[in-house]
């Protein structure tokens, strides 16, 4: 028996969703819409009965397939579920009952291959729009509170203002704001930002790993403003993530998102989306553009490509649309730039547009080894300068990813919090770097920094006398060496303090803070993050000038 999924029957919405899902599964298995709808109806009836008796009732769907036929098994679990046997036997071939459980079997003709089973699983497990909406509401504590404020607000003008603010709160609360977003991954570097406008705007961005090797990221722009636009954005973003869990093709994901959003879209809202899935080990990227402005690709060396392909209309306007997608390969050093029209349509006080040409110029003038965050800021600064005192008309959103290339080689060391371990780490790292022909000068800089960082952890991170593990991970590519140091000591950001005075006279000279100052100068990048009770320090050393 292969499990297709488990459905809860805990409330009216959940039972209605279960009815629809059973009906769709049965349609596919039996090829008979009328019979399928009957199964949906009996599911709903039994579900309501179980729900009336007690909370926590569930329905588990399974299939058994051998050759050209199979069985669908529907297991209802709940208080006195066995009492539903009679009702079920009218629609099924056989019903097994025991205390708190009734399993109904129905045979079907035809073979099921793995794809078909995966499709059925997706059907059962995927969240409905209502469920997602519920999740968004539950996640958004601020929303309930703000809606209360809104109810109390009297004047129409205050009301409009509050509504815009609430919309803004929902919008901003949905965005991932922690950077570096994926400190464990060294083959890419991603950064995004959203600068909200005073009034209009429903931009969003997102980035998440689908699995060990696939990164999904997107930028979107919802039409409209206020709470409706914010909720539309929240649901769109949640749908993308939910569909991406089962599907790596941006076009298929967008088709499904459009399918959900276009149905019953009475307010006629829509959203433009630029969605990409990147294989972080190979640089292969598939992307689909649904009505969004074209992304820009800055190849290593400075040449800019505008990815002009359009793969379908805006999302949410028309049901049953097919979307296309394109593939390209990111090479180490390439910088991909997703943005919203808030940039090119930024206006100065004379109502001149900033325009794409200005953005292209700044992108072109970037240095090759610039990190995503720096690239992003370098392209936005001129926009703010251009805009001057003119009000910002629309949200400005940028998502920038630099592909660094998969590591050619890695070294992982587990160190103990004893001073002797530093020497061991230094010699292991030297041997590793030497075997890959890394220049002596770079090797020395790296080990100097390791000595500083690890000695610092051993001396200051622990409040007890126990043994602790420090993880040291190095990954080397042709372009750069990435170093990740993790410890479970007290939270401490080594890069937060002001630099020491390096011009004091001999008498007044102190060593405190000098170690981290060295690291910040000898390395090309450094960052600190506290995550799951771990201090995570990430260092990067460029290998080519």
């Amino acid at each position, binding site marked *: 028996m292969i499990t297709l999924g488990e459905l809860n029957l805990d409330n009216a919405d959940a039972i209605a969703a279960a009815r629809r899902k059973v009906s769709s599964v049965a349609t596919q298995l039996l090829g008979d819409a009328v019979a399928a709808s009957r199964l949906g109806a009996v599911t709903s009836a039994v579900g309501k009965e179980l729900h009336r008796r007690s909370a926590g009732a569930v329905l588990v769907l399974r299939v058994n397939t051998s050759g050209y036929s199979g069985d669908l098994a529907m297991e209802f679990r709940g208080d006195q579920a066995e009492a539903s046997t009679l009702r079920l036997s009218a629609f099924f071939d056989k019903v097994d009952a025991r205390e708190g459980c009734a399993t109904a079997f129905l045979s079907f003709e035809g073979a099921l291959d793995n794809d078909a089973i995966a499709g059925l699983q997706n059907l059962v497990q995927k969240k409905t729009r209502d469920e997602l909406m519920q999740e968004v509401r539950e996640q958004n504590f601020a929303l309930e509170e703000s809606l209360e404020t809104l109810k109390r607000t009297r004047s129409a003008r205050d009301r409009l203002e509050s509504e815009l603010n609430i919309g803004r709160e929902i919008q901003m609360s949905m965005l991932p704001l922690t950077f570096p977003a994926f400190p464990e991954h060294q083959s890419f570097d991603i950064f995004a930002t959203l600068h909200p406008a005073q009034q209009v705007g429903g931009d969003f961005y997102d980035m998440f790993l689908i699995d060990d090797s696939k990164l999904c990221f997107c930028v979107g722009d919802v039409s409209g403003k206020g709470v409706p636009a914010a909720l539309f954005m929240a649901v769109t973003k949640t749908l993308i993530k939910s569909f991406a869990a089962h599907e790596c093709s941006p076009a298929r994901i967008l088709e499904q998102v459009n399918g959900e959003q276009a149905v019953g879209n009475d307010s006629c809202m829509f959203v433009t989306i630029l969605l990409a899935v990147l294989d972080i080990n190979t640089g292969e990227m598939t992307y689909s553009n649904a009505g969004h402005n074209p992304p820009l690709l800055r190849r290593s060396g400075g040449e800019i490509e505008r990815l002009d392909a359009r793969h379908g209309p805006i999302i949410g306007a028309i049901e049953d649309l097919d979307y296309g997608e394109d593939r390209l390969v990111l090479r180490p050093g390439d910088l991909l730039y997703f943005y919203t029209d808030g940039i090119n349509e930024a206006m100065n006080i004379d109502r001149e547009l900033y325009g794409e040409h200005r953005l292209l110029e700044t992108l072109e003038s970037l240095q090759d080894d610039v990190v995503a965050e720096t690239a992003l800021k370098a392209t936005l600064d001129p926009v703010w300068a251009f805009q001057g005192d003119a009000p910002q008309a629309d949200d400005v959103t940028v998502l920038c990813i630099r592909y660094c290339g998969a590591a050619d080689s890695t070294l992982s060391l587990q160190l103990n919090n004893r*001073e002797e371990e530093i020497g061991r780490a230094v010699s292991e790292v030297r041997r590793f770097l030497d075997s890959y022909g890394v220049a002596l000068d770079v090797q020395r800089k790296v080990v100097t920094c390791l*000595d500083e960082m690890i000695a610092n952890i051993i001396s200051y991170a622990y409040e007890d006398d126990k043994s602790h593990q420090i993880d040291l991970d190095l990954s080397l590519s042709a372009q750069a060496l990435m170093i990740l140091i993790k410890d479970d000591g007290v939270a401490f950001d080594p890069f937060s303090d002001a630099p020491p005075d390096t011009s004091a006279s001999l*008498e007044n000279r102190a060593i405190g803070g000098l170690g981290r100052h060295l690291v910040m100068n000898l390395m090309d990048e450094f960052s600190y993050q506290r995550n799951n009770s771990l201090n995570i320090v990430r260092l990067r050393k460029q290998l080519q000038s």
Partner: protein
Amino acid sequence: MEITSEQIGAVTVARLSGDLDTGTAAIAGEALMALLDDGAQTLLVNLEAVGFVSSAGLRVLLTAAKRLSSKLRVCGLNETVQEVFDISGFTSIFDVYDSEQLGLDG
């Protein structure tokens, strides 16, 4: 870390070999202090055979320098050590020489 010393005229030369880091700073510190206790007036630390110097090593040099009445002389810095000295501002508080001979000449 190996340390040898030699008195050449008025200058006491300390030749360090190995890395001057957290693990070796204590040994190097003791050796330099011993030279000062023995009455060294002008100290030249030769770092030709030193791969890298971390802040623990800088502390040792700083402690020695503070005990001297004349500026501490160092020589034989490789590219990385030179950069570490520059970043930490040590180039301005020590006298840095390219070679031991230039360090002796002062």
